[in-house]
């Protein structure tokens, strides 16, 4: 049994420091509280004849001093915890994105190159990794204790965490949000490998060139589900002349601001694209007819991720 597992990430080590500091503060307070109680229990027990003197009158001095002292310590802890937390949830721009889908009761992982894994996540060492996570059913929670990180995985939303592993090895992965009978079995492992090993692993299943990457798989879906019938081949946009209907161009959509019929403007992110595909009636785009059918129930969360990867890969004005 191991009583201490050093964190495998840099931020994790900082969290350990914070927890250590909290533990020291707690021990000091407990020593004070238990110490005084024990002392008084002995010194001022009813049988003891020790001189008690006149009872003190001015209590408010004590009250003010211990209230101020308490608040000062609390404020310091708040700042430390808050600062670290904000950094913990802001991924660097160059992070390697990997998609995670939770469902009762397994984790499905999709790498950019199209590799799939179940209940396992292989990642390279010394490289920021960003997980973009969603759920097919109930709320799950992706938790890697060795990285000191966890976050809920919600249906209908993309939540993201990031980390940079510094120690190679295999670490436990848990679902930590009650998700039904099999909750306890929704576990897996995170394997941290050196960059060359990781490359090796990536190309492990099929020789390069035979396996489709996510965007290529998305391109197939784009045709198979008839998206191209309205949005045009390569998502260049449709007009009555080309596709028979007016449909917006999808190339370069990610990050663009989109005007809705309500007059509001939103920035197109992954969740927005997902909503456009699954519930288009909720996101009516200004200037277009409301004819896009809902694909909810027909396209799984994993396929949506592939479509998004495809749409992301489309550069404005280019045709693939």
């Amino acid at each position, binding site marked *: 049994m191991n009583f201490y597992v050093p964190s495998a990430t840099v931020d994790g080590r900082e969290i350990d420091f914070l927890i250590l500091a909290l533990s020291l503060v707690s021990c000091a307070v*407990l020593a004070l509280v238990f110490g005084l109680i024990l002392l008084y229990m002995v010194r001022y027990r009813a049988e003891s004849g020790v001189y008690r003197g006149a009872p003190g009158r001015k209590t408010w001095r004590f009250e003010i001093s211990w209230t101020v002292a308490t608040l000062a310590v609390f404020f310091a802890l708040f700042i430390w915890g808050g600062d670290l937390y904000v950094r913990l949830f802001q991924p660097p721009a160059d992070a390697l994105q990997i998609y995670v889908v939770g469902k009762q009761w397994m984790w499905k992982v999709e790498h950019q190159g199209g590799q799939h894994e179940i209940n396992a996540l292989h990642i390279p060492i010394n490289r920021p990794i960003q997980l973009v996570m969603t759920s097919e059913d109930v709320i799950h929670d992706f938790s890697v204790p060795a990285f000191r990180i966890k976050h809920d995985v919600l249906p209908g939303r993309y939540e993201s965490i990031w980390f940079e592993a510094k120690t190679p090895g295999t670490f436990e992965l848990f679902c930590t949000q009650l998700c039904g009978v099999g909750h306890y079995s929704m576990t897996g492992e995170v394997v941290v490998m050196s960059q060359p090993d990781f490359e090796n692993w990536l190309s492990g299943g099929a020789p390069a060139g035979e396996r489709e990457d996510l965007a290529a798989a998305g391109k197939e879906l784009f045709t198979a589900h008839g998206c191209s019938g309205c949005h045009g081949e390569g998502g260049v946009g449709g007009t009555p002349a080309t596709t028979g209907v007016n449909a917006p161009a999808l190339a370069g959509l990610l990050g663009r601001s989109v005007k809705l019929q309500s007059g509001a403007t939103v920035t197109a992110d992954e969740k927005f694209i997902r909503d456009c595909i699954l519930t288009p009636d909720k996101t009516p785009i200004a200037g277009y007819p409301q004819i896009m059918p809902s694909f*909810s129930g027909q396209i799984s969360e994993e396929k949506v991720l592939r479509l998004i990867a495809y749409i992301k890969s489309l550069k404005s004005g280019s045709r693939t």
Partner: protein
Amino acid sequence: MRDAAVQHSYLDDGRTLRSWLLTTDHKRIAILYIVAITFFFFAGGFAAFLIRYNLISPKGLIGSAETYNRLFSMHGILMVWFFLVPAVPVTLGNFLVPLMLGARDLAFPRLNLLSWYLFMAAGVVALYAVVGGGVDTGWTFYTPLTSFYSQGHVIAAVVAIFIAGFSSIATGLNFIVTIHKLRAPGMTWYKMPVFLWSLYATSVILVLATPVLAMTLLLLAFERIFGIGVFDPAIGGDPLLFQHLFWFYSHPAVYVMILPGFGVISEIIPAFSRKELFGYKFVVWASIAIAVIGFLVWGHHMFVAGTSLYSALVFSLLSYMVAAPSAIKVFNWIATMHKGYIRFDAPMLYAIGFIGLFTTGGLTGLFLAALAADVHLTQTYFVVAHFHYVMVGGMVSAYFAGLHFWWPKMTGHMYPEMWGRAGAIIIFVGFNLTFFPQFLLGYLGMPRRYFAYPQHFEALNLLSSAGALILAVGYILPLGYLTWSLLYGERASANPWGATGLEWTTASPPPTENFAVTPIVTQAPYQYRQAEAVNHE
């Protein structure tokens, strides 16, 4: 007044079942409640015992994950809504509020009886849900798991809690009106014992927060029965909305579970230190501050749920603010012991245990309020240990402290002192053995609500289960000797502890009308020093 036995007490006022079931005497209703919540405490405790039994082995010993999930859900639901929330207010509170105020009864005696019937109705529905197979959602009922994915008697469980809520609201209203209107002549607000202030703050929370829970549960039931999309994103709902509404009730509710305990301790520490409560006004206003700020911290249960980073910062800061008044109370209790004449009867031992365990629980709350630390510790056994330290180590100890302290007043009999002390010590030891290892388990990453777990968590789990065995002995012991004392316990005098407070000026057990003549209050509470100075002359 000395010879209580000769006087006509509330217990002699009819011995038939009917005289009990139709009574509007607050003291008798308190007894009815004690019987009811004792039953639920042991029912919930039995579930806890099976949970700890299961976790002895990493593979799980009860054979079925489904059963396990139903056990911890039942444990949480029974303990929270059928024991902890009502525990002190409806038993000690019901008995003592009029006595401490110098009143004849609560403001609305029939409403009081009604609230007991509502509670019992809720209990019957809850038992129906349990016997019919239970629920597997946990006491938190998170959606969309609860909306559509969970099997079991969700609706029955929700209805039970819904009804129990009305019982809480009725009690809360009754206390608020009583404290405003029925104080004896001379009993100004600042002459009230802290126990009453605590119950006042508790009642305000009950009346303001419980309706939110009721609405939330109704929406949940509508979604589950009629498929109206409120919380499930698949039908247009918002899964986080449920968590916001649930914790908007449930965080204030944790203070419903602890404030009355603060009140009990604030009576007992001065009584057994023979000294005035240190910083009376600070202790009182700390309760009020907790009740107010407690409404503004619910988001600390959702630091990894997917709310915005900035809201998390605000909730973290506010959580620290709400912890400060609790710290102030602890310091005041200790300062009360300073230069006292301390005696160690069972109520005092329980109270000292309370201070230690509550402080530990509160300090670990600081870990969870520190955002980055919470990310690692949330959803693990660390949280389980945290809230058991405050709710079981804290509140259950306070309830036992109060039960022993006022037992002579309520029953007219003394409990056996040596047994009482032994119980307090066994509970303290068993409790720490059960729950301290869980802090370590949580830090090491063991998730809560797991039926089976990785091998390397085994040793600490074993330790925890062993502790649970000791704790069980500690809780069964009082059931035995308190029952025994009803028949064979020594007769209690009107004021066996030499305590201040109007309840000790009337006979033990009190007559039905409480006071022969309405008392007139001239003194501040807790005037122990004078009495002691005389004793020691």
